[in-house]
């Protein structure tokens, strides 16, 4: 397993009505790049510490290492490329998902075999097919992003600020007019809320007015 980069502190919000923060970011700094990407997220109700996704046939896992001042620090590592050995699925993937690994009938699995024969038949697992259009920015020495995200075909927006320096993220968040009581929502939590694996925020209806 190869560590990709130094862990960054991250603050992220999701919603349909996050226009104010998006407008602030676009006013303050130019858009640097736009990328389209498709990912498959593996989700379980009980797992809150591991962000498990497959992109371009490669699985990676980010582990939630620290929470500091409402920011999250995720440590990414590569699991490997499909076809994936059943031993890796058993000893790395399922422990990260927090559920019991089923009996593996193959020595290795292609992505389709993994999805069809292992994932889709497990009642404790949910899969989110996610298409992202990611717009990248730099602001106050932080990496910032606005993205249109299609989750199983349904649209939601996200805005993110990240840096290795937590204080820098907090200052940038302030520059964008994001109040201190706004919830930091990571990708797995946002997906789990849409898919009903996690409860919606208690003020969900109020926040929609």
């Amino acid at each position, binding site marked *: 397993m190869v560590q990709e980069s130094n862990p960054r502190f991250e603050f992220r919000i999701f919603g349909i009505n996050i226009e104010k923060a998006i407008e602030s970011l676009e006013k303050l700094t130019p858009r640097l790049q736009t990328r389209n990407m498709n990912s498959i997220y593996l989700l379980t109700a009980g797992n809150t510490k591991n962000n498990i996704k497959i992109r371009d046939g490669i699985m990676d896992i980010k582990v939630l290492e620290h929470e500091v001042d409402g920011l999250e620090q995720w440590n990414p590592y590569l699991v490997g490329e499909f076809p994936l050995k059943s031993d890796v699925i058993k000893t790395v993937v399922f422990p990260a998902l927090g559920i019991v690994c089923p009996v593996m009938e193959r020595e290795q699995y292609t992505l389709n075999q993994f999805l069809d024969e292992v994932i889709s038949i497990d009642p404790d697992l949910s899969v989110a097919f996610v298409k992202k259009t990611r717009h990248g920015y730099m602001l106050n020495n932080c990496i910032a992003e606005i993205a249109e995200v299609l989750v199983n075909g349904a649209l*939601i927006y996200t805005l993110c600020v990240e840096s290795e320096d937590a204080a820098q993220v907090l200052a940038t968040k302030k520059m964008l007019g994001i109040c201190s009581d706004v919830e930091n929502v990571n990708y797995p939590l946002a997906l789990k809320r849409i898919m*009903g694996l996690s409860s919606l925020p208690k003020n969900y209806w109020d926040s929609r007015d």
Partner: protein
Amino acid sequence: MTKEQLEIGAISKPRFEFRTFGKEFDDAAFLMSRLSVPVPEKVWERFSEEIYIVSKTNDINNTKIRDGKMDIKTFVQSVDGLEQWNPLMKGEFPMQADMLQKEVFPAFMVEMPQLTKGVYTLEEFLDIVHNHADLQAVRVEKERFGYMVNDTICEYANVWINGAMVVSVNSESTEVEDIKKTITDLKLEDAENINYLQAIKRVIGMSNKKLAN
């Protein structure tokens, strides 16, 4: 046979429906707005908040709760790909356990949970749903724009399913041929007929099928 004159919002004999869901139907929405006859102001734009109860094992009963009132519709038949749904039950919270046991949970087609109280508030009912492995309560908000095309009731809607947005267009009428003409006029021939229950299941991952676009 005389055609029944449809009136938006009025009770009529069971209608057939074509509905589809996806990320955008801008062309259909434009055509709908241009082909529509004038409609009552009260249906120009409507907003509602609902809770749908979906179950892993049921695709024929559609249960929703709006303003504390439960409404279950049941699938009757499909004609030329159009679906006909009839009302199965209507109830209101607080709801008698007897009604939950005899009418509501059987419609979900899941194992009956143990009901220990005589009457259940909406919150108590949602707790039962939350704790049932095969059931899920889904928050749905709708922003609906009403039209009337070829004597069929039409709608363009923005729909938020647990906060994520999809777009829906539909045409409904007692007359199958009127709906088919409307589908052609709105250039929706290639779009799959997807009802609310299926759309919600696809978004929340209870079904692995895709939306229409």
